[in-house]
């Protein structure tokens, strides 16, 4: 494909720029593109949010249904996160079963939401062993201009923060009530470009990247998940530095997720 031909020239250009501490779009190494969220984008969902990081746009919709708890966890509800990289969002995505890349995005986001105990699953239980809320956070990538993981996570978390449990509609209570979110994990992704490690890579920077590192933090100063991806390596010092940076960005993005807008 033509994208891959131009990529080689672009890659060397991006790496040359990085040597002198510059980026193609003029950002600093520790600077995100503009971030915004739009909660309540989808009226048919019980919670939703459109998240934008630069030109990357990801939509998440939360749906709650009544179901049966798993036999091994009779007192707990179920939370499932699923990301779809539909071919609408990039010239490089094709229709068909999920690619390893799509599965990675989906699982990395799911892992941080699970690990952070974003939702107290016991509170989703209606009748132990019989009836519980099953919460789906579906993620739909609309425009892939790089850094899908952070955008997908931000969309999902914002959607959860603004979600309503449709208890009245399902006839288990007299009124709907807000979904109880106890922790807010935020992913922060870095890539290595030569000797510099930059945050929030664009699509082109991801192609040039010599390793990618995603760190999820929460509001009580925990790192809840990490994922290293692509070909490349990070030293322990690199990782520690990235963790420090991830907390700073995480706090800012949590405020955006909670407040509704940048």
């Amino acid at each position, binding site marked *: 494909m033509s994208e891959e031909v131009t990529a080689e020239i672009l890659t060397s250009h991006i790496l040359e720029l990085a040597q002198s501490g510059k980026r193609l779009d003029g950002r600093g190494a520790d600077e995100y593109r503009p971030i915004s969220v739009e909660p309540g984008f*989808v009226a048919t969902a019980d919670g*939703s949010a459109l998240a934008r990081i630069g030109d990357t746009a990801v939509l998440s919709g939360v749906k709650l249904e009544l179901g049966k708890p798993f036999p091994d966890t009779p007192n707990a509800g179920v939370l499932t996160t699923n990301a779809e990289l539909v*071919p609408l969002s990039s010239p490089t995505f094709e229709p068909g079963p999920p690619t390893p890349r799509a599965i990675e995005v989906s699982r990395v986001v799911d892992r941080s939401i699970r690990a952070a105990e974003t939702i107290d699953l016991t509170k989703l239980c209606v009748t132990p062993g019989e009836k519980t809320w099953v919460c789906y956070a579906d993620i739909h990538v609309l425009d892939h201009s790089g850094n899908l993981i952070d955008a997908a996570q931000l969309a999902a978390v914002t959607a959860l923060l603004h979600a309503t449990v449709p208890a009245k509609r*399902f006839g288990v209570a007299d009124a709907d009530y807000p979904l109880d979110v106890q922790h807010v994990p935020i992913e922060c992704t870095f890539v290595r470009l030569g000797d510099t490690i930059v945050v929030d890579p664009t699509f082109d920077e991801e192609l040039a990247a010599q390793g990618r590192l995603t760190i999820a933090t929460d509001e009580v100063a925990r790192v809840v998940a990490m994922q290293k991806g692509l070909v490349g390596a990070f030293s322990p010092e690199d990782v520690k530095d990235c963790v420090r940076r991830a907390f700073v960005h995480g706090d800012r993005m949590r405020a955006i997720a909670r407040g509704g807008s940048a």
Partner: protein
Amino acid sequence: MGSVGAKDVPVLLSPDGLRIDGRRLDELRPITIRAGALRQADGSAFVEWGMNKVMAAVYGPREVHPRHLQQNNKAVIQCRYNMAAFSVDERKRPGLDRRSQEISKVIGEAFDSVVFAEEFPRTSIDVYIEVLQANAGTRCAGLVAASVALADAGIPMVDLLPAVAVGKVAGAIALDLKKEEDNFGEADLPMALVPQSGRLVLLQMEGHMTEPELSKALDLGVTGCRAIYEKMKAALRDRYSVGPVGGSSA
């Protein structure tokens, strides 16, 4: 469809001829169309139509995947209509079900009827439609979005393809059904029109209509399509026209 705890049939038509949302029988829901809504796509459009939200993207002409579909004398037009899991009341299992595959096929064929595909042999023009929020009429909203996206991508076509569904509600022929009317109405008839020739390139129907009703429905649909056609053209003008210096043309 059928929402959770669906109860009795609502009153779909008031004694003075107004519909469940206050519209007259020949009235469309509000429509906004934005051409060029996405960055990565060669052409794109976002349509909000009543409570529907639909995004469409066009890629191509580009290499054909899978290769065996390639045609030596023309471009193949591949269409994919997909609904997001959260786009409907009860969560839909992600992925293409049989309904989506059928709709993808008829929409693709509608575009194949107007695109000058012979200008791009051995290529593919890929049309992607994602329904983000659904409230009846999503295939028409998707078709309208995709048509504007094709124009936005610079694909040569005979004409834009406005589309609308006409139905029968409480015995009356009504334009542009919303969800309650679709669920409890007696018939649904989606169509897409080539305004220049006055011909329909998509036409489906489900339900019961008499011959006079059907005839009336077709006429009403054509009128509706022509109104939507104006909005589609306006969306493209809005994207590509250069406004006067120091002000924008609304």
